[in-house]
């Protein structure tokens, strides 16, 4: 169970970050096949871009500060590019 629990939490985090980066930072949806790994370079680059824009420490990792900001209510307009 503990293993499943951790895996499920990790999956939930990955879904959150993937959706956030796709919605607001132009992470290409077609990058899905390798986006599942949070340390793949497109995702790391986008996490760093997001952290820089939102005034967070640019670590490229899903640290607690980053996750906390991503969970806050916000405007639906993207931060990069715009509605297409």
């Amino acid at each position, binding site marked *: 169970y503990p293993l499943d629990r951790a895996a499920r939490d990790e999956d939930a985090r990955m879904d959150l970050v993937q959706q956030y980066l796709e919605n*607001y930072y132009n992470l290409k949806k077609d990058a899905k096949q390798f986006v599942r790994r949070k340390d793949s370079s497109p995702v790391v680059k986008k996490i760093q871009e997001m952290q*820089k*824009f*939102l*005034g967070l420490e640019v670590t490229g990792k899903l640290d607690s500060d980053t996750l906390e*900001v991503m*969970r*806050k*209510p*916000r*405007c*639906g*307009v*993207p*931060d990069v*590019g*715009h*509605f297409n």
Partner: protein
Amino acid sequence: TFPGMPKWRKTHLTYRIVNYTLDLPKDAVDSAIEKALKVWEEVTPLTFSRLYEGEADIMISFAVREHGDFYPFDGPGKVLAHAYAPGPGINGDAHFDDDEQWTKDTTGTNLFLVAAHELGHTLGLFHSDNTEALMYPVYNPLTDLTRFHLSQDDVNGIQSLYGPHPGYPEKPLVPKETVPPETETPATCDSALSFDAISTLRGEILFFKDRHFWRKSLRKLEPELYLISSFWPSLPSGMDAAYEVTSKDLVFIFKGNQFWAIRGNEVQAGYPRGIHTLGFPPTVRKIDAAISDKEKKKTYFFVEDKYWRFDENSQSMEQGFPRLIADDFPGVKPKVDAVLQAFGFFYFFSGSSQFEFDPNARMVTNILKSNSWLHC
């Protein structure tokens, strides 16, 4: 601003509240929207009037989940609202997620705060990475509503699109004839128009005059006029010279015996510096014009009837200068106001005339009006 800088081509806009949330009395929604519009009205020439039916420029509505624009809302929390950049149809509209608990205070989601942000989008502002700015994308429930004000970043952004409010900051109204000429908007196609300085900037050409500058993009026919202060508040008006060193992505601005360096919107730290640090003798009090030849990596400074040449590689003034302008640029009449390099020519601006100089033939090949670049 949004990519492509969409903005309204008029300053009087209409808005319509298409429907209401049940979280608040209708008059509370009305006043939150009015207050939010006033935030932008106070710092721009924009004015707003309300429509109660038909198509307004800014259509304001409340909706849940899928609501017809392919960007469904997501229930309570997360996305609170979204809006579209200026333009026809859905553009310029603002949608609010009615799965949020909209309030007049911050016990829920404050409608005024979110509306002021979304209306910023409908006027052409994009998100800001300045955490103090209203246009920062993440909602801040701790905002002190009694002390709400736009950040300088918000004001700079909206004024770069529409200029300042005619009376902003509050100035006593003075009769026209006593308003010093440099505070009036210069007439683009006045045949007597002359420029203070001209520079390229990342592929665009900036024509400086008093407190304003025309921004000419090779992609657009029409130049756009802005206040220098709306982009670079700390730069002086009525500057003497300007040039871009493309290899450094820097534009250098000269006035009197000082110069500044800007990169995009940012004035670089450590400026202004004295012009004598470049190697000018103390007799030089100011320079008239400058141009940096990116091929030769040489920068030419024009002072009265002479010019100096600065080597960008060694960062030093070259020996054997100053030389007479007439000797090396025959046909170019001093004093030179500004210089532009384009299409293999040098364009020397002097008063309302512009001398096209072919550096290979070493002769003036054409004489034009100074404002010929402004599509007059």
